[in-house]
């Protein structure tokens, strides 16, 4: 259960982007090969956001599929996370197009709260 550590890192990146301004929404992209479970990250977030610029923010997790591009046959396909060779031709020289993300995509500021 390392999602709390990851959540603390996320909040440091959010604080850096928001520069002290209140945040209403945080969007992250999570792929299953990152080793992070979005549901656990959300639960950790609910606790960790207290006392930060994100204390009233929603966390939006975009769950990314595992997708490969095969350099041998050119196929681009979605695959299960433990079958990472090309399902069409069996080649292992594949490029992961998506699936290992652990990315802070965007931070939306809470302008209504700012105005108060």
């Amino acid at each position, binding site marked *: 259960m*390392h999602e709390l550590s990851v959540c603390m890192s996320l909040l440091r*990146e959010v604080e*850096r982007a928001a520069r002290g301004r209140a945040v209403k929404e945080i969007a992250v992209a999570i792929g299953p090969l990152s080793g992070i479970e979005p549901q656990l990250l959300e639960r950790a977030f609910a606790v960790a956001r207290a006392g930060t610029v994100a204390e009233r923010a*929603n966390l939006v997790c975009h769950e990314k599929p595992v997708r490969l591009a095969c350099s041998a046959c050119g196929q681009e396909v*979605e695959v299960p996370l433990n079958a*990472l060779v090309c399902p069409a031709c069996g080649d292992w020289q594949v490029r992961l197009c998506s699936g290992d993300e652990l*990315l802070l995509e965007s931070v*939306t500021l809470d302008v209504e709260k700012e105005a108060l």
Partner: protein
Amino acid sequence: MCEQCGCSVSHEHVRVSDAKGTVSSTPADPHAIAVLTHILRENDELAAHNREHLSAHGVLALNLMSSPGSGKTSLIEATIDAIGGRLRIAVIEGDIETENDAVRIRAKGVPAVQITTGQTCHLDAHMVHEALHALDLSAVDLLFIENVGNLVCPASFDLGQHANVTLLSVTEGDDKPAKYPAMFRISDLVLLAKCDLLPVLDDFDPAKAERHVRALANRAPVMPVSSRRRDTLAPWIAWLDERRSKLPRPSATAHAHHHHAAE
């Protein structure tokens, strides 16, 4: 094809954490700041710093990972004996509690720094950075970083190692690589530990374990080893020597501690 709704488009599934349930903003929201940074950016930057520091001293650093009880410490002990003073070894031990593993390593006359993580299930680059300050790297050729026994969390944290070595003991299931793909996908070497027990275990098939690693598009060597049988360690020792020979030559100038300025 999307498994949840059957559509042919591979779209992502969005989760919103708060019970309010509405996604109030769109990418067009004028108050949305596009960030696109890795969430573990701080850790990754410090890991890169550690790696640079280790390379500058000509130290090959290996991140040893496995389930608890797969024999990481025993393998380090046996490796110290097999190398027999030919290389100067140091060890960083990560455990939730106790100095027991560091005590075992020091009994071999090898410097060991124990990191006790409290309840944390993995090592991170900050902990390793602290531990590196307790070692004289100019007197080290080979550094083993023994991670906390856990096949899940350590996979997410770069420490600054040059390679990941994952132990899978033959008393575990040979399908562990299929169950823990995040870990076995990033392994540069997989050691099938306790291989001396294979004759009495009819349910662990080394070929099957290797097939599960290959299914992750990982071409890393898969080697059976036993800490109790010196003769099984030769391929592992040869792998260590080969990795050491590939290290960039240590620079003559002292490594400067530079820090990445925040934007």
